[in-house]
């Protein structure tokens, strides 16, 4: 595990830098669509200029989240539960990415 410290540190910073413009764009774009009619929200997401940054935001944020939550788990959990939680944390990140990418695919190509 210790040998992975430096790449993880670098990935956490690299994703942080990428998330600066994406998060700023995301907040401005999403707030006005959150409570909107489905058709209005769909129209916003169907535009590739929104769909592509949205996919990038979810994927990069999920990886940043996985590393951050992993640090919290390692800090506070010292029993055998640590490895279980770290594994679930991976599953959660991969599940979030899969669900969001599938949803964007379905919005653009299906129905």
């Amino acid at each position, binding site marked *: 595990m210790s040998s992975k410290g430096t790449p993880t540190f670098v990935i956490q910073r690299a994703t942080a830098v990428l998330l600066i413009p994406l*998060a700023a764009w995301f907040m*401005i774009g999403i*707030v006005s669509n959150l*409570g909107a009619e489905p058709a209005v929200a769909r129209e916003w997401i169907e535009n590739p200029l929104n769909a592509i940054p949205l996919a990038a935001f979810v994927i990069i944020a999920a990886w940043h*989240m996985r590393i951050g*939550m992993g640090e919290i788990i390692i800090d506070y959990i010292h029993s055998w539960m640590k490895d279980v939680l770290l594994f679930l944390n991976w599953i959660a990140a991969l599940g979030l990415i899969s669900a969001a990418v599938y949803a964007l695919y379905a*919005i653009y190509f299906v129905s």
Partner: protein
Amino acid sequence: MAQGALSDKPLSPHLQIWRFTVTMAASITHRGTGVVLYGGTALLAGWLLAIGMNAPIYSAIAGFVNSPIGFIVIAGYIWSLCFHLFNGLRHLYWDAGRGFAVGMAKMTAWLVYLAATILAIIIIWAGMISKGVS
């Protein structure tokens, strides 16, 4: 932890030992907002899935978002993202080896709270205007 009592090695002070400072508050808030954003991103994925699958649950989600409790949840999420964004910039500045002086670190911690609150208010306000709610 518990093993500390069994060994001769010194323990670092626990949380409740520290005197309150804005820098420690910002550090704790950074971690707390990170956890909030973890949940928020899960909600975002759920919202996208509801739209993509034409799920009947979408109208329930939209109803929740437009309710007073939904407003508090969204506003909390937006403030958390603003705080994590600005304090993340502060961390990157530290990574560059700068900004460690005590006075500087305290000032930037206050600045992060202030900037996050201002940006969150602007974004929520702009969102309400574009929805025609205000």
